[in-house]
């Protein structure tokens, strides 16, 4: 009996053991398709070599945020593949929000993921990504003579410790939109804006919409109030945000939220929420990025042909109505297996012709200065050339590898200020303290 039991146990162990071995074998097999795939590729390569002695077939993956509403990204990729038939580009879309995209790239890049080669990245990322070694150094490929043809703000944003890590693709700057059927001359100061909004209360449901949610966009909006009242954030490594001008600037923002000209829910608005309200004809003014112009003039828009664009108003101590420099840049994953092809794509996407396509179809602002004088651009978006000076004057957010931590502090404290939790002065003081800590910790 005992022997029988032992035999049974042995048999069981044997079965389990072989099962496990089979499992291992299965795993090994599972890992072979890649190899055999490579082999297949190689054999295919040999075949193609015989037929067509040109180049091997390469597939690049391009990741970008949003939904490509104008279809410009797809169009550019189509033309790229026509020009380089040996390179296939696959598109991979990410969420709209820049914070979500950042998280996705951090997760992928920190684990040396090479499943994507080229991607469009926010203007605030290069210092962070370059110092972590995640994006390719483009210094040798992107010559100085070429860089001079671009706007200098975006070029500066892509340069880290004297080396360039990204190619500016399109630039962005906050601008003021207004309804030409209600407002004759756009306001020069925030006070004028508030008065105009109140005076025309009966013409639209709300006076002014903007980005008030606690996220990156809030920082862009708030900094414009501070800058346009003569305040500054960082001067080199010195935190200079705690000035009367900055406090007064933020106070104007707080007053606008409280004044009743904005919907109560504006403290949850991102770009698209604001655009929806404006495009439905429910607001007189809107602060947004240039992309809203093209979309607002489409056939499904209730305010088609009634949209005016102006520089942002200034505060009592301000002189120039500049906007926050935004914009997206083409970066190359440092772990890409096809650096040459990836560079070709980056170069193509940011070329003169493609920036024209990008503007005409998507309304994005070119980073090459010449494109502003292109006839087609002038015809489709007549407001573009006239704002070249304003876009050249737009300001970058603090350039630092630790910008996201600084932004975190600004998001929280500015949002506390506009929701009435703390005063504008307290918010500025908190940000000053946090930024000093962040800089000290980064040394």
């Amino acid at each position, binding site marked *: 009996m005992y022997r029988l039991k032992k035999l049974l146990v042995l048999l069981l162990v044997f079965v389990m053991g072989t099962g496990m071995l089979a499992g291992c074998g299965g795993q090994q097999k599972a890992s072979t398709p890649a190899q055999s795939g490579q082999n297949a590729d190689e054999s295919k390569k040999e075949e193609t070599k015989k037929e067509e002695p040109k180049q091997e077939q390469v597939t690049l993956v391009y990741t970008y945020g949003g939904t490509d509403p104008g279809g410009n990204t797809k169009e550019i990729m189509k033309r790229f593949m026509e020009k380089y038939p040996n390179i296939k580009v696959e598109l991979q879309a990410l969420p709209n929000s820049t914070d979500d995209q950042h998280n996705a790239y951090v997760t992928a890049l920190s684990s040396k993921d090479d499943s994507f080669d080229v991607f469009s990245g926010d203007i605030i990322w290069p210092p*962070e990504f370059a110092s972590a070694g995640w994006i390719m150094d483009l210094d040798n490929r992107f010559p100085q003579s070429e860089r001079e043809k671009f706007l200098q703000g975006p070029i500066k944003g892509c340069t880290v410790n004297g080396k360039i890590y990204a190619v500016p693709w399109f630039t962005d700057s906050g601008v003021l939109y207004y309804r030409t059927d209600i407002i004759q001359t756009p306001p020069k100061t925030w006070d004028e804006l508030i008065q105009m909004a109140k005076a025309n209360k009966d013409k639209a449901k709300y006076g002014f919409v903007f980005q008030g949610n*606690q996220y990156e966009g809030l920082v862009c909006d708030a900094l414009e109030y501070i800058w346009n009242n003569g305040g500054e954030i960082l001067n080199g490594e010195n935190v200079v945000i705690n000035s009367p001008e900055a406090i007064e600037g933020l106070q104007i923002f707080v007053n606008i939220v409280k004044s009743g000209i904005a919907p109560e829910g504006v403290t*949850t608005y991102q770009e698209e929420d604001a655009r929806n309200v404006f495009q439905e004809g429910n607001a007189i003014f809107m602060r947004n990025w240039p992309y809203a112009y093209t979309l607002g003039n489409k056939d499904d828009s209730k305010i088609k042909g009634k949209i005016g664009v102006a520089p942002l108003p200034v505060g009592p101590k301000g002189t120039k109505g500049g906007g926050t420099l935004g914009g997206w840049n083409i970066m190359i994953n440092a772990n890409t297996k096809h650096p040459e092809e990836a560079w070709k794509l980056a170069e193509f996407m940011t070329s003169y012709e493609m920036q024209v396509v990008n503007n005409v179809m998507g309304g994005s602002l070119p980073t090459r200065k010449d494109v502003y004088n292109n006839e087609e651009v002038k015809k489709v978006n007549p407001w573009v050339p006239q704002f070249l000076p304003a876009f050249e004057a737009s300001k970058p957010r603090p350039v630092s590898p630790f910008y996201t931590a600084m932004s975190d502090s600004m998001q929280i404290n500015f949002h*506390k200020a506009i929701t009435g939790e703390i005063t504008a002065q307290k918010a500025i003081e908190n940000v000053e303290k946090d930024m000093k800590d962040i800089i000290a910790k980064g040394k």
Partner: protein
Amino acid sequence: MVKKFQRKAQEARLGYFMVSPAVLCILLLAIYPLFSTFWYSMFSFRLQMINARKFVWFGNYVSLAGDIRFWAALKNTLVFTGVSVAGELLLGLMIALLINREYTGRGLVRAAVLVPWAIPTIVSAQMWKFIYHDQLGVLNDILYRLGIINNYKSWLGTAENAMGAAIFTDVWKTTPFMALILLAGLQTIPIQLYEAAKVDGAGKLRQFWNITLPLLKSTMLVALVFRTMAAFRVFDLIYVLTGGGPANSTEVISLYAYKTIFRNLDFGMGSTMSVAIFLFVAVISIFYIQLLNTENVEG
């Protein structure tokens, strides 16, 4: 005797051999990440300065203890957990009592009650975000048409409203879970007890207090353990609904830890927070287990 000893040793060896895959899995999937997180938490370690990694002992814990934002996040987490779990228990109990009774269409009601629980959190959070939206949301539309409000309210835009909205969403979503577990508990109570009580002249309320509640206590505790721990680690709901805003009033500790690691790339500090969350959850579960044990001894 020797033979028996040998046999025992052999069997033990076989036993170890048999459980080794499971043990290996646990080591790999639970213990290793736990210890590596703990290990990271002893470093000043940021991805932007990958070469400046420095061992700082418990330095991160000291700075965490002095971090106002962390304590605020802990408070938010406790408010969220306390209110939502209490609400779920109360509502869940009522629903369980209701669907435990005999009536036509009971099966349909039982199935319908389960629907919110069947929707993935991330989806229901997005759904509720639309419902709460100030311009496009159906909540404002209904209230406005009924004349309860005269202008659109911002449900996620003020500190008072947003936490309430988040809790409401959580209660809506997880009450069915509570109801289901309590229903299972209710069905184990023998019907004879109620009959005897009836004969003795006890009313419905008396029956509930003296029979239902005491006999349901241990089931309730089990349900509470699950829900408290899940609510304490809430992440996806808040991430989608408010992202921590407005004025950071809904930032819970999981979200803060996530932002520290993935937005600010501060792995040292983020790991410290993760360890802190682990410790809090451990304390909560020990508390409940203790409670359950005494319950069982009494029972």
